[in-house]
């Protein structure tokens, strides 16, 4: 097990490095000069002097390899440079906002698992029945409605019309725990909705598949009752592929936070990103993209480990 975890961590580190390199390459491989591109607005050519200044500020006048070395070296110190807009260092801002985004993601993942797995199991057990049809229909609808539509609708209904919760915002947990949670509820539910749908569909498919497996027949041949068979021999086995999908869906989930934080004014990383992109603040964008990608790699690492706990074949075979 330890060996397996060590290996996964190693792979995660390599991925982090590769992602950083990829981001660097994207920036340097696009045709044209980033400084020029960033400064050009509309069809007017940018002021050459400003371009030159920006180039030297961004270090673009140095050889590419030197830039790369400096870039990686800065990253190892978690130094993301300074913002172009206000010259503030980016790292502290990231450190402040990261936990808020993380909180949103975790809350959504928990909600989705708690609802998705039981509903998916139920749908599989009642396959073809009306309860399955209803659950599947709801899941399809949830999957097809973009998060920003859901979020905006929730704001319209619960904040504007009913006035139950405020439309958005953020209060630190330490300051007012209740208000914190009430503000967390809507964005977390919004992100959780499509994920729940995915979990339902996956769990249903996976449980249906496991139900066909020989070992379930063996469990019945032992004389076990339905309850223990479903719990010990069906759901337990069905979770393995569901976890894998959860990992694959992490990307969409994190992408969802971008929109949801914007809709609900949640001051996390992703809302910050939107403003950075709008302002085309290149160092900020790179910093946020990197941190979120690292987060993504980290979450997948956690999922790999869960996977090994659930399926003994994984850790021993690899």
């Amino acid at each position, binding site marked *: 097990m330890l060996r397996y975890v060590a*290996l996964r961590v190693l792979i995660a580190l390599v991925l982090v490095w590769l992602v950083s390199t990829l981001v660097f390459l994207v920036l340097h491989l696009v045709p044209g000069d980033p400084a020029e591109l960033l400064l050009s607005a509309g069809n007017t050519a940018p002021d050459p002097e400003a371009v030159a200044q920006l180039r030297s500020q961004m270090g673009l006048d140095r050889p590419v390899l030197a830039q790369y070395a400096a870039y990686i070296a800065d990253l190892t110190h978690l130094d993301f440079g300074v913002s172009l807009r206000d010259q503030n260092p980016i790292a502290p801002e990231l450190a402040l906002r990261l936990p808020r985004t993380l909180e949103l993601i975790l809350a959504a993942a928990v909600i989705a698992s708690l609802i998705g797995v039981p509903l998916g199991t139920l749908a599989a057990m009642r396959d073809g029945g009306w309860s399955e049809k209803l659950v599947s229909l709801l899941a399809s609808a949830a999957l097809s409605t973009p998060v920003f539509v859901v979020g905006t609708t929730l704001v319209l209904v619960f904040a504007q019309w009913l006035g139950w919760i405020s439309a958005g915002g953020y209060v630190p947990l330490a300051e007012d725990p209740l208000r914190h949670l009430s503000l967390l509820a809507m964005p977390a539910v919004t992100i959780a909705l499509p994920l729940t749908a995915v979990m339902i569909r996956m769990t249903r498919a996976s449980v249906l598949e496991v139900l066909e497996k020989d070992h379930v027949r063996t469990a019945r041949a032992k004389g076990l009752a339905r309850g223990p068979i479903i719990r010990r021999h069906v759901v337990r086995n069905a979770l393995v592929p569901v976890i894998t999908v959860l990992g694959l869906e992490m990307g969409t989930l994190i992408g969802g936070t971008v929109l949801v934080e914007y809709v609900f004014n949640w001051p996390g990383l992703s809302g910050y990103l939107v403003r950075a992109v709008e302002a085309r603040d290149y160092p900020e964008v790179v910093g946020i993209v990197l941190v979120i990608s690292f987060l993504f790699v980290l979450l997948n690492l956690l999922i790999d480990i869960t996977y090994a706990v659930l399926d003994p074949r994984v850790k021993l075979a*690899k």
Partner: protein
Amino acid sequence: MSPVIEALELTRNFPSRSGWVGAKRDVWALRGINLSISRGETVGVVGESGCGKSTLGNILLGLDSPTGGGVRFEGKYLHDFKGAHRRQMRKRMQLVFQDPFGSLDPRRSVGAQIADGLRNHDVVPAAEIPAEVARLLTLVGLAPSVAPRRPSQFSGGQRQRIAIARALAPRPDFIVADEPVSALDVSIQAQIVNLLADLREELDLAMLFISHDLHVVRHLCTRVVVMYLGRIVEEGPAEQIFTAPRHPYTQALLAATPSLKRPAGETGKVLDGELPSPANPPSGCAFRTRCALATGDCASAVPPLETVGPERRTACFHADLTAGQGGLQ
């Protein structure tokens, strides 16, 4: 008579790691295999699963490359041929698979699949292809009118006939049949075994017949090699191997094979223990962990394959003790 195909000191190892950073281990699928097959000969290969039978077949056909040693086809080394030349060689050697359901492309008509071999190598002029396909189908006992049908419309036995027709299309000199009857029912199996026997006579083919069914091997093959963990442990004319086996493993294998002829109540001698992992075989004679005759010598050196009679070779230090034991009725 000069052999069609020869294996010279063939070894094949599949390096495997436990994980990305784990210790590297070699799985030796084949070790020092020497074998030659002449026209009109059918050599049976028997042994337990994982002992390297299919690997041997693939390497002889050039579908896999050996780690060491070489394969000579009509005196020329296969590894001297590359690219288009290699593909040219392929027409001389063909393969029949075990699974009659997986070996035909479900999306193409059986006629088209048989014709592939004819087209690839311009065996006959394009205009004569339909006639040739019809001839091949007749040869394997099917009606020529079935050519436009898809594989799904045939039973297992019929598919196996089609697969054989496809293998015969480029007019090969050498055929590897990898468990061609294992997936078939006894009554159908008999049809295919008869067909293979007829073809061997008619076309003067050299054939490697891989099977775990000793009765079928005995019936069809002229010569037999017995493999254990990547090595040949015994080799000789089929009838002699079955009536007078010399290697303790061959004897155990024959004893373990259920037989209708064995008098009721008398069960064969049962070999204890499991097949060791090919990644971690015992030192010396690989069979020593299960062998009743094993002594200290057996652990320290690998017994060489030595001649013990006309055309008979066996790899056992104590072959003198084994004469006259075992064998099938």
